[in-house]
């Protein structure tokens, strides 16, 4: 969910740095394995990365940390040659310097940068040995047949080198998650042949690993580093950064927020740099919660990543749900909407236990859901704006064996006006609208049904500042009419401005609850990133 298209990291004002920016660490060139100088990346409408410089010493484990949309994924993609940086930036590995606007995946490889991405592209149905050579071409004999024995031998040597205790012929699907990640790492590094000139870049290697596996993988990284391997890893687990990294670079809103070395890497320092103080944005004043009436209540909701979630949502209240990716926040919303199976636990609507067999039931009960992935799960991109607006209520226009197309168009025109949608007409094709306007269309689709409970998953992701303000104006109107909102957002600044109350989801449970002035970005960051349960 991070990304350059993301909102809010506007170019118009300077984020107040908590510490002065730290330039590239000076030192003899032989000691620096990777140096990034003045790296910027501009996307139409946003600057994802602004003049970032830092250096990594040979044989060190360097962590790259930052919140969603801070620019770390963009930086990794520029290093990998997937994106071109803006002109002026350079990437130096050893003695070779590359202009950031001329990167390609092949050049990155030639420089000695080896990447393992978040979901390592291992092939579960193939053996470890096959996985090792898959991107390199199989070595074959004169008849074109694969030389299996040689392959097994090479793989065994590789596994020994990286101390991975698996059989070359084992299927990758049978390996533990940490071993799979290690196989991916070994594959990325196999060309290095013992010398450690290159840099291993890991993009959130632990994002989908359970706790015990993280420890195994981090242990392996430490071993590689002691052997002289330089490692850059992106992570959002602060504990592993603190335990493992020799240096940590923190990005915020596309800029370098600071670099911490050795003992400076503490939880409080990291959180200070990650959260920082962000831009003042225009948020409408949400109407105060006037009722004590509980509309929706969850008791011990379990399923998927969730392990017993409890909360209460009052009439006219905005309840924020803070949590990291993978904390189960999206699954929680889907469960309430009848779109994700509930293993156990109860959902109560107006004090009565409800069981939604499908989404239609939840909709009938007055629940509405705006998913996180607009293009994938909400927008009908090749259909008209009118089709998109009425998509959730078509049957309403079915009268006397005829669809009232004219009434539909009329309502759609009306909605365009009321929901601040910038479009030439209700016939305009959804895909030709800007992200912010598409989001307003999706919101209008649900708000026009006058829902009692509105579930919002990252409602302002990928929209510009103005649209963001308009979206919150619309939500505040609905709240004023008595709608209750469950709001999931990774933007804790936004959460602190909009929510009446916030719960933090961590390890599949609600670990703490904040009210009013307590809802504060630094505090939220701290709670969401912390892995232990915190008493509220």
């Amino acid at each position, binding site marked *: 969910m991070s*990304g350059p298209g993301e909102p809010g990291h506007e170019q118009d004002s300077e984020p107040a740095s908590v510490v002065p920016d730290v330039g590239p660490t000076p030192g003899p060139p032989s000691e620096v394995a990777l140096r990034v100088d003045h790296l910027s990346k501009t996307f139409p409408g946003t600057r994802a990365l602004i003049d970032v410089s830092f250096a990594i010493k040979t044989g060190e484990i360097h962590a790259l940390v930052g919140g969603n949309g801070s620019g770390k994924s963009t930086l990794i993609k520029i290093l990998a040659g997937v994106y071109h940086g803006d002109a002026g930036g350079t990437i130096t590995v050893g003695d070779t310097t590359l202009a950031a606007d001329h990167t390609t995946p092949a050049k990155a490889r030639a420089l000695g940068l080896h990447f393992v991405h978040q979901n390592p592209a291992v092939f579960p149905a193939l053996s470890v040995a096959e996985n090792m050579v898959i991107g390199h071409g199989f070595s074959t004999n004169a008849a074109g047949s694969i030389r299996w024995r040689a392959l097994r031998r090479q793989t065994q040597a590789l596994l020994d080198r990286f101390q991975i205790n698996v059989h070359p012929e084992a299927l990758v699907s049978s390996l533990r998650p940490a071993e799979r990640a290690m196989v991916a790492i070994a594959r990325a590094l196999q060309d290095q042949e013992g010398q450690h000139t290159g840099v291993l870049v890991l993009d959130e290697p632990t994002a989908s690993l359970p706790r015990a596996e993280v420890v195994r993988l981090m242990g392996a990284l430490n071993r590689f580093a002691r052997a002289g391997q330089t490692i850059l890893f992106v992570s959002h687990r602060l504990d592993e950064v603190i335990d493992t990294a020799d240096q940590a670079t923190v990005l915020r809103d596309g800029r370098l927020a600071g670099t911490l070395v050795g003992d400076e890497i503490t939880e409080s320092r990291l959180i200070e740099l990650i959260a920082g103080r962000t831009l003042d944005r225009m948020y409408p004043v949400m109407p105060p919660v006037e009722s004590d009436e509980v509309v929706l209540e969850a008791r011990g909701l379990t399923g998927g990543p969730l392990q017993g979630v409890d909360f209460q949502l009052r009439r006219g209240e905005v309840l924020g749900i803070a949590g990291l990716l993978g904390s189960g926040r999206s699954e929680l919303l889907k469960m309430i909407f009848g779109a994700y199976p509930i293993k156990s636990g109860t959902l109560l609507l107006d004090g009565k236990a409800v069981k939604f067999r499908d989404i239609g039931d939840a*909709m009938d009960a007055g629940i509405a*859901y705006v998913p996180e992935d607009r293009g*994938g799960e909400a*927008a009908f991109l090749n259909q008209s704006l009118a089709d998109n607006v009425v998509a959730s209520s078509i049957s309403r226009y079915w009268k006397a064996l005829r669809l009232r197309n004219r009434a539909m168009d009329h309502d759609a025109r009306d909605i365009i006006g009321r929901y601040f949608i910038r479009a*030439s007409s209700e016939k305009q094709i959804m895909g030709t609208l800007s992200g912010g306007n598409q989001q307003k269309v999706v919101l209008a689709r649900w708000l026009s049904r006058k829902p009692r409970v509105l579930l919002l998953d990252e409602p302002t992701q990928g929209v*510009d500042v103005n649209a963001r303000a308009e979206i919150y104006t619309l939500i505040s109107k609905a709240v004023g009419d008595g709608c209750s909102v469950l709001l999931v957002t990774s933007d804790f600044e936004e959460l602190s401005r909009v929510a009446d109350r916030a719960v933090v989801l961590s390890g599949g449970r609600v670990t703490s609850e904040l009210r009013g002035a307590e809802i504060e970005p630094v505090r939220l960051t701290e709670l969401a990133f912390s892995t232990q349960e915190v008493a509220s």
Partner: protein
Amino acid sequence: MTVVADTAAGEDGPSRVPPSGTSGPPGRSRGRELALEFTERYALVVLFVATLIFFSVWSKTSGTFPHATNIKNVLGGEAYSGILALAIMIPLVCGEFDFSVGNSAGLTQVLCAGFMARLGFAVPLAILVPIAIGAFIGLSNGNTVARIGVNSLIVTLGISSVLLGIVQWYTNGQSISNNISPWLTNIATDEWLGLPVTLYILAVAALIVYYMLEHTPYGRYLYSIGSNRDAARLVGLRVERYVLIAFVLSGTLAGVAGVLLVSNSGGGNPQAGQIIDTLQALAAAYLGATAIKPGRFNVLGTMIAIYFLAFTVTGLSLAGVADWINSVFDGGALFVAVLVSTIIGRRRAGTS
């Protein structure tokens, strides 16, 4: 903290639509846009009319092509292909292929003839039972595709081959032409108000499908499912059920097409109702999606496409062009149609 960056990038912001002011593009380009839209909508119609004029004045065909008999023959003779095109179009709307329509028609056709010839079924029964069997084939396809989630192309291609085998087994490779109800065979030759009765049958079928797709919620649901299945599910649509129904409708129409085939050929012919008929139907549906409502499968476009293909093939054969030209033409039409409708669709979705 994942990697949607590529899609999010540049998708937003003021570049596409100015954040203030709701007006469309300025005058001149708006005019060009309208002209483009008009061309897109009516290009096939214009091409169709031009083809008719060409064959009417071309010295090789001017003597035969523009005659009432020829025109009536083509109009009436395309009922089978037209209904087959409607059959394949319905699953296409929701993004699924039914490649079994041709062979379903092939089976229902020999069954209809066989029931009359071998079992002495009454005419209504000999017509309705095969249509019901067509519907059942659709149900089975739909069940496999919608509920279990198997790729529809593979499922229906496989079933096509199975149906072909059953036809060979049932007929022993011989045509069935005894005891065929004259009432049924007369349908192919009868006229009403100066036009072939089969044309009316096609028109009724087309109207029903048109009504269903454009004027009932079910039709809208199918288009939504075709546009974005996950989003359709998340606005409360019962995607599996609707897709299943689409296949049942497709199978039923294929059954109707099979009965018309009996009427056309006066019996059950093991060589009729083949995969090539499916491909022709597919060509018409895709060609139809380039016209009238570009980028969207639609009934009127499909009907125009069916007659465009039929009149062109007739004109060519009247001119004495070798038979192999026909399959080149049909295949070429499918290729061009898919190409054009993909380009149009991409532009409409704003992804080009």
